C-alpha cells in the first residue's frame, strides 16, 4: 500500500512542480510560483476525477453486463479495477446460477403430475404449481401469501393441519369439485425445515371409481354364482324330502342340470377372462383363414338359433353370412381367441334378437387396409347411456331379461380382452328400436387378403 502512497504523492508533487516551473518562467514572483503550483494541483485533480467517473460508471454498468471491458486506465486505478472485477464477476455469476437453479427447480415442480404447494410457518401459500391450482381452484399469483386454511376450509383439513400428524394422507372432496365433474383428492402434508410445510395433492377420482367398479364386480359375481346354487339346493331338498315318481324326478334333474351347466359356463368364462388377462400376447406368426373361422361360427350360430327358437316354438333367425370372403383372407393371432371373438358377437346378436329377426354379418376390407367384421341385428337396440359400459363385467342393460337367454354377462368383457390382445377396436352403433351394429376393426398388419409370395411359390 505504501507503494501506492509514494506513487500518488510523487504524481501530485510532479504536477505541483511542473505547474510551479512553468509559471516560474512567466514571472519570477512568489505569486506566480504559488499560482502555478495550485494550477498543477487542480489539473491533477481533474485528471483524477475523470478516472473516478470512468471507474464508477464502469462499476454501475458491470451489474448488467459482466463482460464489459474496463476503462483504459493505468497505475492505481487499474489495480483498483482489477481488484473489484474478479469478485464482482464471480458474485454475479453465482447469483445467475442460483436464479437458474431456482427456475429449473420450479419448472421441475411445475411438471410434477401431483399438485405441489409450498407453505410457510403460518400456513400461508408461498408457491404452488398449475396442477395444485387446478386441484384446489387456486388462482395463480392472486392466492400467493393467502393462508391455506382460508381457501381450503373443510373441517377435516383444518383438523389434519392442526393435529400435525402427517403420517397418512387425507382424502378430501376438492372445493373445485362440481356434481357434474367430481374431484376427489388425496392430500399429503410434509413438514420440513423446522416449521415449514410442503403440501402434495393427488387426483384419486379415477382410483375411487375403479374401486367402486371392483366392488360391483365382486358383488355381481357372487350374485351370479349364488342364484343357480340356490335353485340347485332347492331341487336337492325337494328330491330328498318328498317322494317323487320317475317323470317328476326326471324333470327336476333336467332343471338341476341346466342350473349346473349355467354355473359351469360362468366359471369357465371367468377362467377364460383371467387367462386372457394373464397370458402372453398371441403369436402373430400364425395365420388363420377367415373363411374357416366364419364357417364354424355360422354352423354354431344356426344351432344356437334353432335351440333357442325351438323352445319357444318360433321361427329361427334369418342369419346371413358373407359369401364373398377372399379364399386367402387370413388373420394373424390365436385361432381359439379369434373364434371366441366372432362367436361371442354373433351369439349375442342371436340371443338379443327376437325369433325371426334379421342378423347380418359382413366382412369388408376398406381401402386403407385392415378388415372390418360387423354384426348387425334387428333387436331392440341399446340406449346410448349403456353403450360405454357394455364391456364391463356382468354389466346388464336390462337385468330382468338377463337369465332367460342363458348368457353369463361376461361375453363382451371377453371380446374386449381379445380385441386388446389383437390390437383391434370395437365400435357399437345402436339406438333403441333400431337394432345394434357391432363392428370390429382389425389393423392392416394382422390381416392379409392374398397369400404371400412364399406360400404361392410352394
Amino acid at each position, binding site marked *: 500500500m505504501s507503494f501506492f502512497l509514494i506513487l500518488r504523492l510523487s504524481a501530485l508533487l510532479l504536477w505541483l512542480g511542473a505547474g510551479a516551473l512553468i509559471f516560474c518562467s512567466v514571472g519570477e514572483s512568489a505569486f506566480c510560483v504559488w499560482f502555478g503550483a495550485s494550477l498543477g494541483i487542480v489539473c491533477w485533480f481533474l485528471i483524477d476525477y475523470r478516472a473516478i467517473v470512468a471507474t464508477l460508471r464502469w462499476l454501475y454498468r458491470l451489474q448488467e453486463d459482466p463482460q464489459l471491458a474496463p476503462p483504459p486506465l493505468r497505475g492505481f486505478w487499474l489495480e483498483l479495477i482489477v481488484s473489484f472485477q474478479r469478485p464482482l464477476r464471480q458474485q454475479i455469476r453465482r447469483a445467475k446460477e442460483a436464479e437458474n437453479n431456482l427456475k429449473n427447480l420450479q419448472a421441475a415442480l411445475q411438471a410434477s403430475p401431483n399438485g405441489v404447494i409450498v407453505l410457510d410457518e403460518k400456513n400461508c401459500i408461498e408457491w404452488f404449481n398449475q396442477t395444485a391450482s387446478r386441484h384446489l*381452484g387456486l*388462482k395463480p399469483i*392472486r*392466492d400467493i*401469501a*393467502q*393462508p391455506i*386454511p*382460508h*381457501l381450503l*376450509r*373443510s*373441517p*377435516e*383439513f*383444518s383438523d389434519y393441519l392442526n393435529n400435525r400428524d402427517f403420517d397418512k394422507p387425507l382424502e378430501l372432496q376438492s*372445493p373445485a369439485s*362440481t*356434481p357434474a365433474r367430481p374431484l376427489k383428492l388425496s392430500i399429503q402434508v410434509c413438514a420440513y425445515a423446522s416449521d415449514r410445510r410442503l403440501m402434495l395433492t393427488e387426483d384419486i377420482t379415477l382410483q375411487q371409481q375403479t374401486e367402486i367398479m371392483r366392488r360391483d364386480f365382486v358383488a355381481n359375481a357372487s350374485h351370479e354364482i349364488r342364484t343357480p346354487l340356490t335353485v340347485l339346493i332347492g331341487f336337492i331338498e325337494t328330491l330328498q324330502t318328498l317322494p317323487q315318481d320317475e317323470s317328476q324326478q326326471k324333470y327336476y334333474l333336467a332343471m338341476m342340470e341346466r342350473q349346473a351347466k349355467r354355473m359351469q359356463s360362468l366359471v369357465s368364462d371367468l377362467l377364460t377372462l383371467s387367462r386372457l388377462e394373464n397370458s402372453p400376447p398371441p403369436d402373430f406368426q400364425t395365420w388363420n383363414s377367415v373363411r374357416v373361422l366364419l364357417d364354424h361360427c355360422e354352423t354354431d350360430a344356426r344351432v344356437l338359433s334353432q335351440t333357442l327358437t325351438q323352445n319357444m316354438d318360433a321361427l329361427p333367425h334369418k342369419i346371413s353370412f358373407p359369401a364373398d370372403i377372399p379364399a386367402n383372407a387370413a388373420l394373424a393371432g390365436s385361432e381359439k381367441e379369434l373364434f371366441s371373438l366372432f362367436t361371442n358377437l354373433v351369439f349375442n346378436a342371436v340371443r338379443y334378437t327376437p325369433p325371426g329377426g334379421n342378423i347380418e354379418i359382413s366382412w369388408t376390407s376398406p381401402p386403407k387396409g385392415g378388415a372390418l367384421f360387423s354384426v348387425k341385428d334387428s333387436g331392440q337396440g341399446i340406449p346410448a347411456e349403456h353403450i360405454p359400459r357394455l364391456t364391463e363385467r356382468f354389466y346388464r342393460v336390462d337385468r330382468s331379461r338377463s337369465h332367460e337367454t342363458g348368457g353369463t354377462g361376461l361375453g363382451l368383457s371377453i371380446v374386449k380382452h381379445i380385441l386388446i390382445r389383437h390390437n383391434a377396436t370395437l365400435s357399437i352403433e345402436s339406438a333403441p328400436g333400431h337394432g345394434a351394429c357391432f363392428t370390429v376393426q382389425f389393423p392392416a398388419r394382422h390381416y392379409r387378403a392374398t397369400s404371400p409370395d412364399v406360400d404361392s411359390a410352394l
Partner: protein
Amino acid sequence: MNDKHLSSQFDSDLNDVCSRLMEMGGLVEAQLQRSVSALEKYSLDIIEEVIRVEEKVDALEVEIDHELTAVIARRQPAARDLRLLLAISKITTNLERTGDEAHKIAKRVRSIMKRDGARNIPISDLRVASDLAVNLIQRALDAFVRLDVAAAIDVFKEDDLIDREFKGFTRKLITYMMEDPRTISSSLDLLSIAKAVERVGDHAKNIAEFIIYIVKGTDVRHSSLAHIESVVE
C-alpha cells in the same frame, strides 16, 4: 388483508379473527353439504352429524363476536380496518343463520323419513337448487378471502337462479298436492326445505354485499344489481 400495519400485532389480531371466521365458514359449508346429501341419500347418520355440528357453529359465533369487541376496543380501527371488522361481524351472523338453515333442512329430511313419504315426489329439482346454494356459499367465502369484487358480483347474479328454481319447485309441489292430498305433509316439509335453500342463497348474497362494502366503502344493501355494478366500476 395483506396490507401491513405499523403495528404487526394488529395485523396478527386481524388475521386471527379472519381465520376464526373461515373456520366457521368451513364448518357451515360442511354442514350444508351434509344436509344436502342427507336429502339425497335419506341417511340418519348424516342428519345426526349436522345437528351435532350446530352447537359448534353457535359457539364460534359468540367467540368471534367477543374477539371482534376486543380488537375494536384495543386498536380503535378506522377506515378499511373498521369496515373489515364490521363486515366480519355481519358475515358471522349470516353464516350462523346459514348453519341454522342446514339444521332445518336436516330436521325436515328426518321428519320425511319418519313418515317414509316423498318417494313419489321428484326431489331431483330440489337438488339442482341445493347444489347451487352450497356452491354459492363456498364462492362467497372464497371471494371474501381474496376480497374479490368481481367474484362477489357473480354470486349476486347467481342468487337469482336459485330464486327462480325455488318458484318453479313451489309450483310443482302445488300440482302434486292437488293431485294427491296424501302427499301434502311431505310436500310441506319439502317446501320448507326449498325455502331454507332459498334463504341460504340470500345469505350468500349478503356476504357478497359486505365484500363490496369492505373494498369499495359503499353500502350496497337493498340496492339493484345495476347500482352495485356502477359502484364497482
